[in-house]
């Protein structure tokens, strides 16, 4: 058998001390992705550090900041009254992900850390630069219906599979990381990476760091929001494309604030900054939504089977904005 050591720790300090000693160690939280990767021979950690007993499950309001512990389950977050009231976009995105059974054990930190669902990544007989740098990209010229249209590289066109992260990037979340020396904070948009020349790296988490919590400022985006997930079946399917939209609309129907992001289109959750800039201060109208959607598609590139996303994505942006702004 491929043996591995299983350790359980109850503090983040000891977790960090354990992981910094061993580069072949991995944290085990919900395990909904890591265990699959181990079964498929894609991940072969020598040490699993079970952090489920580290007290990082808090969901609370401190001042005007919402704090979400890295080990809060997806269900706990999605069902929490505070989240439902203040960050309904996040709750909606979470509930669009996976299945109820998976959400019950999957954690916030694990959701951020999950790896792509690209079929070539999972089949060790196939080429994949993310799994085995230098082996090539199976998806380019192969089955790439689920793959990226933005920010792709010649090395990798995989997408990040999360729904939660699409909402978090829109909400300008801050990720708090702990390391043996202390803590550091990074913007959610800087957490995940594009594939570039190092597709094996999904994010900027360092080897001796762990995700501790998220911090999200209370905002005025809880009324006009929508998370649209377009998929092949109504549950337990990854997004073809998804759109998170949240807006603040003035009494005269002007957009005073807007956040837009997409999933299923890039190696990381994809923020639509140009579209946001265009919409700010403008009227919430079909024409403006269409223009915003058009702006979002600048630089989109299809790879054959995923060409349809170049049509589906702007349509979905329009739909998400329309639904978000039609809430009374």
């Amino acid at each position, binding site marked *: *058998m491929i043996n591995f050591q299983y350790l359980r720790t109850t503090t983040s300090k000891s977790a960090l001390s354990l992981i910094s000693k061993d580069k072949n160690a991995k944290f085990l939280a919900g395990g909904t992705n890591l265990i699959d990767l181990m079964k498929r021979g894609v991940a072969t950690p020598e040490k699993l550090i079970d952090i489920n007993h580290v007290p990082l499950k808090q969901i609370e309001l401190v001042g005007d900041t919402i704090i979400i512990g890295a080990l809060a389950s997806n269900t706990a977050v999605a069902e929490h009254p505070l989240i439902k009231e203040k960050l309904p976009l996040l709750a909606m995105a979470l509930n669009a992900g996976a299945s109820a059974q998976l959400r019950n054990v999957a954690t916030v930190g694990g959701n951020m850390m999950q790896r792509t669902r690209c079929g070539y990544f999972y089949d060790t007989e196939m080429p994949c630069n993310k799994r085995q740098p230098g082996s090539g990209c199976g998806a380019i010229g192969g089955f790439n219906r689920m793959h990226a249209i933005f920010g792709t590289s010649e090395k990798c066109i995989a997408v990040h599979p999360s729904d939660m992260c699409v909402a978090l990037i829109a909400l300008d979340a801050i990720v708090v990381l702990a390391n043996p020396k202390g803590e550091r904070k990074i913007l959610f948009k800087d957490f995940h990476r594009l594939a570039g020349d190092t597709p094996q790296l999904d994010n900027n988490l360092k080897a001796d760091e762990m995700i501790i919590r998220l911090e999200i400022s209370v905002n005025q985006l809880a009324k006009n929001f929508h998370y649209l997930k377009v998929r092949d079946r109504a549950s337990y399917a990854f997004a073809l494309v998804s759109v998170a939209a949240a807006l603040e609309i003035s009494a005269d129907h002007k957009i005073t604030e807007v956040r837009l992001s997409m999933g299923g289109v890039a190696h990381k959750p994809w923020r639509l900054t140009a579209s946001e800039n265009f919409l700010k201060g403008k009227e919430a109208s079909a024409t403006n939504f269409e223009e915003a959607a058009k702006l979002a598609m600048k630089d989109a590139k299809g790879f054959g089977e995923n060409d349809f996303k170049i049509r589906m994505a702007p*349509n979905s942006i329009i739909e998400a904005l329309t639904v978000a702004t039609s809430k009374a």
Partner: protein
Amino acid sequence: MEKRILKDENDRVDGIFKVTGKAKYFAEYALPGLTYGVLVTSTITKGKITTLNTKAAEKAPGVMAVLSHLNKPSAPGYEQDGGSPLKIFYTDKIFYNGQPIAMVVANTFERATYAASLVEATYTKEQFNTDFDKAVADAKAKKLQGQPDYKRGVEDAYKTAEVKIEEKYHLPIETHNPMELHGMIADWRPNNQLTVYAKTQGVKATQGTIANVFKIPNENIRVNSEFVGGGFGMALRTWPVEIATIMASKYLGKPVKLMLTRMQMFTMVGNRPAAIQTIGLGAKKDGTLTGITHLAFGETSVYENFTEGVVNMAKFMYQCDNVNTQYTVVPVDLGVPIWMRGPGEATGAFALESAIDEMAHALDMDPLEFRIKNDPERDQQRNLPFSDKNIKEAYRIGAQKIGWNERKNKPGSLIEGQWKTGYGVSIGVFNANRGRASVKGILKADGSLVLQSATSDIGPGTGTGMTLIASKLMNIPADRITFELGDSSLPPAPSQGGSATLSTVGSAVNDVCVALKSTIAELAANANMDATSNFVEVLKKNNLPSVEMTKQSQAGKEREAYSMYSFSIHFVKVKVHGLTGVVKVDKIVSVGDSGTIISPKTARSQMVGGAVGGVGMALTEESVIDHRYGRYINNNFADYHVPVNADIPEIEVHFINKPDPYINPMGAKGMGEIALIGFSAAVANAVFNATGKRIRNLPITPDKILAST
């Protein structure tokens, strides 16, 4: 095993076992000394094994043997040349990617799994093709055949018709994917006595195949398969991996268990073959069909041929004097397909029933009206009357229940915001088979009845149906009747396939009950009792603890005088999102026309299951292969999309519930296939009605809706 008891007709004899975990499936038999087999599979698609290094695996902890073509474990039937099944361990040829090339047996599953990863193979590779579309394009020059061509009247009469259509329809590979993984436990004992715990739709067929391969008498082989966690056709044959498991047990003299992984379910136990079909239809302007041409290509493997009834329906389902069909199978370098629910008829019905809708549209007729206009009075293919057919009534019921009058004939007429609503209809039909089966009945003085037959219950409710037939005939409460099945030592019955079990085994239940009643009447007469005396009293008076008899039953001359089919009508209402292309099935109404309904609950359940499978076929299911490598891409439950609850709306099921006067003593016909056949076309037709977009390439995923103009 506790007795399977039926409390009332809305119950299932095995329901309580299934929901409490007491139903024991093949993999759960914990035999003493059980060992575990894990397969090593080919990583190339075509060629030959040049070296196979098993040394590291053999030395790994707990490993007892590594079986391969190098040590050829004994299977005398495999020594002979010829024969088409893939002879695992008897060939170094590779026919498809993922083909089993070795089996590691160890004392734990984990150890066997690890050791299997240590086996190293090298190959000489050959050019291959797994792309069915390409194979069909290349096949035009070759002389391939599937089944004999059929012609009635003028060939390709549609070409000169007043109104004609000619369209091409594509179906991808679908994989059965029952919840229960496939496999077997084999326990080969000295003196060539073999017990197997199998996942099979036919214990007798499995027994026969094993006897043939291992050259031992049938009586030496006991096949147990009491509970099966879904088959859908994939357990209708004994697969090479099962033979390999028995070889391993014989080789080691120990019981061996093999259970496939979900990934291996895509490569070792068959699939619904891909198909490309062309339908030509011709009609007069008044809507009279004047020509049907149905040409089909079906996928098969290079090492074994597989054919099915893709073009059957075109020959008799509509009144039409000019019909011709052609069915050709084209090999690709993949594992051999097998029947999947509805089998070829479901494949064919997608094309035919879509085309019928297209023709109705071309004629500017309501498709329901067009169907009714061309509904045949007689079976023109066989020139016989139908034994029982109530399609017009089924159309009427279904149309009323779905709200067909809300439908507009002009596509894209019903729009609410971004959602477009449409209605579709289709028909399903399948031969009402009846085979030969034996049932033993044991009537006991304690008031109970035991019935035994080596049939199967892969989920439709065989035990329940049989119990209800006997209960009605014998006037014995259902909870005093036990129906035993899934054991090859019981009286013989055919495999559970082709919607024939209720008709076939049910008739034998009927016959044995009739015989038991007459025996009781004789015994009553002998004891000077009233002929209507209760059998308990009669047996007691005669000092008999029980009477038993076995009856074999089969169809007679009636099958030469009548054309016998089961029918279904499917009505579907869908909503299609204009911007995203998402299709939501909003309502389903299926009407079954299959004679008397024996068990209302399990009959409804069959239709519901077929509708769910039909939604999968129409909207979500497709096994994807990267043809550069010949390997499946989406071989898991996350990426191969069977419908989930959220995809399934309200399903209404109705039955005509009139006895077929000729088919069998119960007047009842099977419905496993008709529940699915045609369904996918009803969805495609509804999508067209909603959007004006005709998708001829299943599954109808959102991208296809957006791409279609």
